[in-house]
């Protein structure tokens, strides 16, 4: 099976979708001829033509709105927002429009599309190339929110997202585009070639939305996370010797409560983790739901390991980012709580 990094896997996913269905189009700032600033749409304009894969003017609101209009006429748009930090100009079109077209028209119109966007920190990108704005969107009924953590899932989830027929905000952890990251700052990049999920089939397949993945089985505690931090959690379990069960959520809306509850009922101890700030982060939703479902099984308070309630810093990135060592301390705290 071919080995791909996440960029190649996403490119392959779009290639499959464009190939199979003439109604699929892909667009974004620099996404056409150049193939995107991360090269995710590389080669697709040359292959499918400039009215199927094209550059847009720099206007994120218009990009989202164009996707809505195209979807209303039966196209299946894949829109790229160059960085998740730049999705905010589009928020009205996503929150007030894209999310509600099906509902407010009682199903007469739909707005199925994928809004892909590079997401998260760990690349010394400063406050405007590092954000994790998923919680803004998990709060919006009508959009699904997906965050893959490896090449295999990225492709399968991308295909499933577009085929779902409803809008999906698809966050791509850019720190792990080219290889997994163990949360130890400034270590040389490792490669997807050595990771089992770096093997990606060429053709069509899906990874279902709403299904989490247990990436490590364990007994001592449960870790619920997504994106880059899945790999950091694995590294922390290894480094600390704590037998954590690590759940990669993959889909945030709708999230897989069954898998989470089953694990928490087994371990009784939980760390929920994300890079985004703590207050009203997605971890707050997870913690609340876990205590509703598993209150009597819990043996320690749910631990939220998150970024701080500050903008994302530049020079002190590693004081903000939940590193491997902070992760290990969080696991230790929940496992040692009486």
């Amino acid at each position, binding site marked *: 099976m071919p080995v791909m990094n996440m960029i190649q896997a996403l490119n392959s996913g779009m290639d499959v979708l464009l190939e199979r269905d003439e109604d699929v189009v892909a667009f974004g700032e620099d996404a056409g001829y150049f193939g995107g600033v991360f090269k995710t749409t590389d080669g697709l304009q040359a292959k499918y033509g400039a009215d199927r894969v094209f550059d847009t003017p720099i206007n994120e609101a218009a990009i989202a709105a164009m996707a809505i209009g195209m979807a209303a006429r039966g196209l299946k748009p894949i829109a790229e927002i160059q960085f998740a930090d730049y999705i905010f100009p589009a928020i009205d079109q996503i929150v007030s429009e894209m999310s509600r077209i099906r509902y407010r028209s009682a199903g007469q119109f739909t707005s199925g599309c994928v809004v892909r966007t590079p997401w998260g920190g760990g690349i010394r990108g400063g406050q405007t190339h590092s954000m994790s704005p998923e919680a803004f969107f998990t709060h919006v009924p009508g959009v699904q929110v997906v965050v893959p953590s490896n090449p295999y899932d990225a492709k399968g989830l991308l295909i499933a997202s577009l085929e779902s027929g409803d809008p999906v905000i698809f966050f791509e952890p850019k720190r792990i585009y080219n290889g997994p990251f163990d949360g130890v700052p400034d270590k040389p990049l490792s490669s997807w070639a050595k990771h089992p999920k770096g093997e990606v089939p060429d053709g069509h397949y899906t990874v279902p939305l709403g299904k989490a993945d247990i990436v490590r089985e364990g007994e001592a505690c449960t870790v619920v996370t997504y994106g880059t931090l899945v790999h950091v959690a694995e590294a922390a379990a290894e480094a600390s010797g704590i037998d954590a069960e690590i759940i990669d959520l993959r889909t945030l809306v709708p999230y897989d409560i069954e898998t989470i509850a089953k694990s928490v009922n087994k371990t009784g101890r939980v760390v929920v983790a994300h890079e985004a700030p703590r207050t009203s982060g997605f971890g707050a939703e997870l913690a609340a739901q876990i205590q509703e479902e598993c209150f009597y099984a819990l043996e320690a308070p749910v631990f939220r390991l998150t970024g*701080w309630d500050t903008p994302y810093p530049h020079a002190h990135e590693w*004081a903000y980012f939940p590193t491997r060592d902070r992760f290990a301390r969080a696991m230790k705290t929940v496992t040692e709580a009486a």
Partner: protein
Amino acid sequence: MSNGETRFRVPAPPFRPGEEPDFSHLKLPKAGEAKRPDPTVEGRETQDLALGLVGVLDHNHQAVGEWDPKVSADVLREGLKHMVLTRIYDERMLKLQRQGKMSFYMKSKGEEAVAVAAAMALRDDDMIFPSYRQQGMLFARGRDIVDMMCHCISNSRDNLKGRQLPVHYTWAEGNFFTISGNLGTQFPQAVGYAMACAYKGEDRIAASWIGDGTTAEGDFHGALTLASTYRAPTILNVVNNQWAISSYQGIALGDAPTFASKGLGYCLASIRVDGNDFLAVYAATQWAAERARAGHGTTLLELFTYRADAHSTSDEPSKYRPKTEGEVWPLGDPIERLKQHLIGLGEWDQARHEQLEEEMTQLVVKSYKEAESHGTLHEGPLAPTQTIFEDVYAEQDWRLKRQRQDLGV
């Protein structure tokens, strides 16, 4: 120019890599042709200026026409010095970025006149809301170079405490607003600032700069709407350097003839200016400032120029435009043109120019040594770690205090 057979028009640049660039299709008016109306003219009467091109330096490097600002040789030499310094500074910082001394860098090569001439034509108390490519303004306003470098290498003397990416300067003392990485946001903010100056009875004005690509953002249109409605004392500048990363200017321009012409719909005074002509940028800025200060509102200036280097250190322009495109750009190089003009006036010569370059190089090298003595991004010292919790609010609430404790700093 289009992308072959497509079902809707998708504009494409005139040349891609592998093609021979040739700008003879650009029918640019000659220097000296444009009329200079009184700065109190009705905005809608500036159509010729919006569709034309204000230029002063002709192909023989002589100042011609009504727009010649007739500034002294001392002012011209000062402008030349700031532009040379800007270029040498950019060159050096790029090298240092390649050596890992900073996380990121953006040069302004080819666009030095846009920044330096505008800053010199404005008053030092006029407020500027720049984009990330007007570092020349800082030199023109006399910012300490060591301070600029300390920001770029995020060290303990960085006045932004390491919070911002390099080149995203802030300098309140120099009336230089805090640069945002989010495109276009500063444009309507500048109008608000200008309205506040009017409210306070000051005769200061505000000026802002965005790129050609950024005119597509809603904030561009928001700014023009506010400016037109409130007649704010503002100068709104579009730096058309032909490229927005890999997208050529036609992706934002659409069927409009020029970016300046977009101001006409709002009845703003709108002028396209040769951005590689120091004298033209100086004259147009002076005109717009006079208009704003006299209560006649905002001018939209398009500075027609060329991004002579990569977008940033994350970019590789040979992937989307011919390598030689900049060399055949018909409006030349801003530093070379001002230099030749001064030589023609008998106010400059090659030996003095080389001496200037040498002095500026020494200044930059010496300044960097000093900057590095205050630390670097990777080796430190940085601002103290607990500063990441400061300035989120005026006072830290319990959450930030607790989080700081959790981090153990």
